[in-house]
């Protein structure tokens, strides 16, 4: 009985170890990162909340503006060691450079510029498939809010 069982057990164990190794390799070496930048206009002149921003409603609440309107969504796939520029309303641009992927967190170098003038340079680590909010620049009588999300691919 032991001999009959030994081979299936051995094969099953090897299959499990192989599957685990393959999954680990696939998980730890993403080829690129997909970055989505949502540009939002936050204001206080009305109580309008854009239904397109429903998924961000809870995250925008701490800002305590009265109105939120989606201005633009842009998604780009960026390879590691690459960079992409996102056009932001108001003549601004956001340059994103993926830095690293570790512990299911993605490191991003972010630069927001207005024309040639840099507004902010920051390096952040966000959860895979998570986001960070960057806001403040004045725009059309309100404030520009950017939701920057990233997902490894």
């Amino acid at each position: 009985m032991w001999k009959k069982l030994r081979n299936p057990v051995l094969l099953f164990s090897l299959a499990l170890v192989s599957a685990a190794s393959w999954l680990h390799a696939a998980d730890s070496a993403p080829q690129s990162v997909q970055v989505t930048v949502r540009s939002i206009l936050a204001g206080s002149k009305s109580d309008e909340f854009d239904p397109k921003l429903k998924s961000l409603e809870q995250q925008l609440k701490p800002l305590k503006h009265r109105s939120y309107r989606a201005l633009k969504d842009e998604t780009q796939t960026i390879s590691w060691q690459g960079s992409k520029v996102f056009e932001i309303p108001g003549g601004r641009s956001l340059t994103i450079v993926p830095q690293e992927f570790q512990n299911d967190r993605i490191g991003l170098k972010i630069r927001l510029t207005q024309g040639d003038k840099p507004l902010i340079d920051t390096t952040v680590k966000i959860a895979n498939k998570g986001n960070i909010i960057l806001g403040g620049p004045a725009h059309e009588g309100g404030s520009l809010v950017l939701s920057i999300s990233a997902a490894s691919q």
Partner: protein
Amino acid sequence: MNQCETIRESIGRWLDGELQTADSEAVRRHVEGCPDCAAARQRLEKIQGMLGNLLTAEASQLEFAPFWREVRRRIEEKRPWYEELIEWAQSLLIAPRLAWTVPAAIMVLLGLLSLAKWPVGGQVSNYASVESIDTHGRNVALLREDKTKTTIIWLYQDPEGESENVEEATKSGPAF
């Protein structure tokens, strides 16, 4: 040792049916043709009959009811939980079952690793860590909101020249 002596040594086993067919037939033929061996057979059968009667008589006097009652009690008796646990643990250590503990241990390990990666309850922390920040002389606020697990970087633009609407920006800026 002559043939009769050999046959007489085998008569007991022959009567008990313990001999092979060929040997049994040889003994039967000899006993039927040899008066001395036939007499030996009769003596042996008589002794066996007497012993049988004696045992039957003795057995009828024995009280078997308490014996069977005790057997039934032992069968129906509920054993303590720890004895059942020990027996279960021992059954796990039988080699064929033990062999499956290897892949089982691997699966448990993989499960634990998955749990570590995907927190129980599906609530993945969205907190972002800010490693460095340079606002080129502007003020900045960093907010971490517990309820939504969101990290917010709020940039205060210099009202001189950069703001498109200075008054509104100042009013609506650092609301949190």
